[in-house]
């Protein structure tokens, strides 16, 4: 709950308990006057305030967990709150035994250790990662949080070596056009990736937000394909095979493809289209009439956002929100919009527009373009929140689909 303590609450509490050096907080817990004794000493490892308990939301099968978007204020996701999606659990990889093999259409098939990778010139970039299946809003109940609508997107500062540099090191063939990336998890997860992405901005990342990758994000090294659907960013990367055609793995044929209305199915649909979500106000917040800052995040896998529009009247009119600088390409951007709520029921919504001119579509536009069989992957419809006259906020309902 994001209700704020009023000055009156504080005064009333302080007057009643000042004599014993403590006061009652909003939640009823007795709080000690921190000015009268020494606090905790320095420690080896920091932790959150005991009053802050953000949590990922794992699904029943425990193959995914979602980032609590509503609890975050910036654009970098704390590493322990980064969403998870794995196909064979999270392996415990010994960094000393870790090896990356690059072979196939290369002049010098080579095995790199983790130390080898770290010795190459490094690069750091801030990018989001989003799962292709990151839409929990279809037929969702009013009591649905941003975390459950689209919490399978997270952002980190990634550090590693450009894949192009490794391909240069091994002498990739000029005739090669694709590469296979393979993990060392129990799924031995594979995806085929066009080599153009390697020459563009792909990297092998070994650090996340300044420290070693978390196991759930691919420790000790992963593929990072900025702006591309999450599962292509192979974690626990053990092998890259350079080739001249795609391998047609399970994940790029029977999964992560888009069945279309005309009976065909779209394949190699890699790039994440522009999207946004209002993270506040959202369920289960309760707001008061008056000035409300509408806040959220927006992103596009195709580059920079051009703008984010916010509607406070259910989509009848839209205003451009303020974007927090820097607006980085292929990155979460925070948007904010001040709104003077008059206390009447309404829907607040957001839509992202990226630099290619793509505008985040409505659910109806997606259905019209793809048909009803395509309801699993690459869904980025405009979503919203219904604000009731009593200030309660609920996930905006759509017809069942």
């Amino acid at each position, binding site marked *: 709950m994001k209700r704020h303590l009023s000055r009156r609450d504080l005064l009333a509490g302080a007057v009643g308990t000042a004599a014993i050096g403590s006061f009652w907080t909003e939640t009823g817990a007795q709080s000690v006057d921190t000015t009268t004794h020494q606090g905790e000493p320095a420690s080896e490892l920091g932790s959150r305030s005991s009053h802050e308990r953000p949590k990922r939301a794992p699904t029943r099968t425990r193959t995914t967990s979602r980032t609590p978007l509503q609890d975050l204020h910036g654009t970098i996701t704390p590493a322990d709150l980064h969403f998870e999606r794995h196909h*064979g659990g999270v392996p415990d990889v010994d960094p000393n035994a870790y*090896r990356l*093999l*690059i*072979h*196939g*259409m*290369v*002049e010098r*098939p*080579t*095995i*790199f*250790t983790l130390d*080898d990778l770290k010795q*190459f010139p490094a690069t750091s970039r801030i990018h989001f990662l989003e799962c292709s299946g990151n839409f929990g809003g279809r037929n969702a109940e009013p009591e649905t949080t941003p975390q459950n609508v689209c919490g399978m997107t997270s952002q980190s500062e990634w550090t590693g070596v450009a894949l*192009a*540099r490794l391909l*240069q*090191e*091994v*002498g990739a*063939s*000029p005739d*090669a056009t694709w590469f296979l990336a*393979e993990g060392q998890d*129990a*799924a*031995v997860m*594979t995806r085929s990736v066009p080599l153009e992405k390697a*020459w563009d*901005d792909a990297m092998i990342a070994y650090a996340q937000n300044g420290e070693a990758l978390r196991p759930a994000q691919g420790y000790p090294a992963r593929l990072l394909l900025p702006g591309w659907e999450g599962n292509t960013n192979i974690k626990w990367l053990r092998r890259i*095979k350079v080739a001249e055609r795609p*391998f*047609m*793995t*399970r994940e790029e*044929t*029977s999964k992560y493809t888009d*069945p279309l209305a005309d*009976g*065909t*199915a*779209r394949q*190699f*649909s*890699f*790039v994440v*289209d522009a999207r946004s979500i209002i993270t506040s106000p959202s369920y289960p917040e309760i707001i008061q009439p008056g000035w409300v800052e509408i806040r959220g995040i927006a992103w596009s896998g*195709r580059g920079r956002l051009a703008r984010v529009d916010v509607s406070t009247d259910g989509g009848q009119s839209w205003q451009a929100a303020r974007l927090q600088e820097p607006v980085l390409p292929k990155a979460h951007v925070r948007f904010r919009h001040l709104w003077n709520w008059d206390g009447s029921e309404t829907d607040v919504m957001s839509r992202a527009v*990226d630099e*290619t*001119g*793509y*505008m985040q*579509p409505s659910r109806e536009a997606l259905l019209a*373009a*793809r*048909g009803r069989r395509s309801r699993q992957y*690459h869904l980025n419809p405009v979503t919203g929140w219904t604000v009731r006259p009593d200030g309660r906020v609920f996930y905006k309902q759509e017809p069942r689909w």
Partner: protein
Amino acid sequence: MVTRRGSTSTRLGLSVFAALMLSGCGGANDAVSFTARSANQAQRINLATVDAPDRYGLGQPATRAEIEAWDIDVMPDGTGLPPGEGTAETGATVYARQCASCHGPEGEGGSGEALVGLIPGGGAPFGPTYEDWRGDLDDVPFTIGNYWPYATTLFDYINRAMPSAAPGSLNTDQVYGLVAWLLVKNGIIPEDAVMNAETLPQVMMPARNLFVPNNRDGGPEVK
């Protein structure tokens, strides 16, 4: 018996001498001869190359044995398929023991996804034909019979990732047998067909021509 997913205990510390000897006789299994990357390609590399060398001399040459230990992928033309064979009959036993508890006795699905079922209109071996189907057509499950474009992918995936409780535990003949069983149950091959490195790439899947290349490329049109 061939190891299904490559040895995890491969020794990576062979002497440089041995490594050079081995890489000298081919190294990669795609024998591609080429000399130098074109200037054009070098320009496309998004690197700060002003004072950077072409090579840093990091890493060790991979030996043939090291590559073979991990090189388990199978392509649609059959590249990568190992020797061995199986039929639906041999596969049935393996399926009942290793797969049925998750995917259902007839591949109809359970805690694991449905594996058997044809294209709507073509009938489904475990249930009502499409003409009798009273449910939502859009909710027909995606199966091997109606959505997998390549039979070779079955071998590749089962070999690398199944069964989920013990991935990598099946031998080559067991995987070929499972592939044969699944293809028979989906009505794609005759019951007595033998699946091996020669026959599997020739299997034409019902969904073979279903797939079209990506056309989502940004811009104002919703696709």
